[in-house]
């Protein structure tokens, strides 16, 4: 399964890419919203992990752009959020995000569960 991580923070990009790769996922990364949109078109990921707080184009703008892309609108998007920003999570879901994960939690098992739930793929079928 191919995961696109759109995340401007080098630490979290490496952290999640490493963890997901160790667990058998194919990982593509993008460091900002514009690069992320280009890589969606190029790589057609199965799931997108999207940071909401990024410079230039933030996660909300990326969601709005994805909604206009016929070849991308079906791709499930899981957003990274922070505690206390429930309004942002709600707004992201209204824009098409299917789930969220708290970025300050390093529970990779939870993230993988959300990925499988988003794609309705059983864990033993992930590759």
């Amino acid at each position, binding site marked *: 399964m191919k995961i696109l991580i759109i995340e401007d*923070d*080098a*630490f*979290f990009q*490496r*952290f999640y890419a*490493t963890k997901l790769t160790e667990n058998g996922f194919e990982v593509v990364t993008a460091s900002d919203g514009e690069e992320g949109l280009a890589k969606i078109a190029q790589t057609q990921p199965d799931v997108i992990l999207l940071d909401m*707080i*990024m*410079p230039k184009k933030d996660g909300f703008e990326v969601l709005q752009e994805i909604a206009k892309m016929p070849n991308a609108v079906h791709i499930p998007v899981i957003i990274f959020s*922070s*505690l*206390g*920003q429930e309004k942002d999570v709600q707004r992201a879901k209204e824009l098409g995000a299917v789930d969220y994960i708290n*970025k*300050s*939690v*390093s529970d990779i098992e939870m993230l993988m569960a959300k990925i499988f739930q988003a794609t309705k793929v059983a864990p033993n079928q992930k590759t």
Partner: protein
Amino acid sequence: MNTNLAQYKDLYIKTATKYVRDLQDGINKLQNNSADPAVIDSMYIAAHSLGSQSLVMGFTSTGQCCRSIEHVLYANKTKQTMPSASLQALLQPTIAKIAKSLQTIEESEQELSLEEQTQQLAPFEKV
């Protein structure tokens, strides 16, 4: 430090140092009477990222203090206001102490306690 996280320490220090610098630059601009909303945006992203990274790495006191700064700046962002003089007076030494905490983390993998600063920021989160 958790052995699984030790591999991320150098990258954490590198990116965290940049975020602390962004916070220091921002507070300096505010104290020079900058009214540019981009200053708040930059500080907000820095506090968000530094807080999230610190919590993942297990530096809870540093992470929670940065979270408080993030929440305070979120309030300013949503209300399109600049931090008050009293908040700025609190932010400057808080950011300085975060910088020192990062230094001790690099030297000894131990953070400083920032509980007092986090408590002092709490009233400003609701403004």
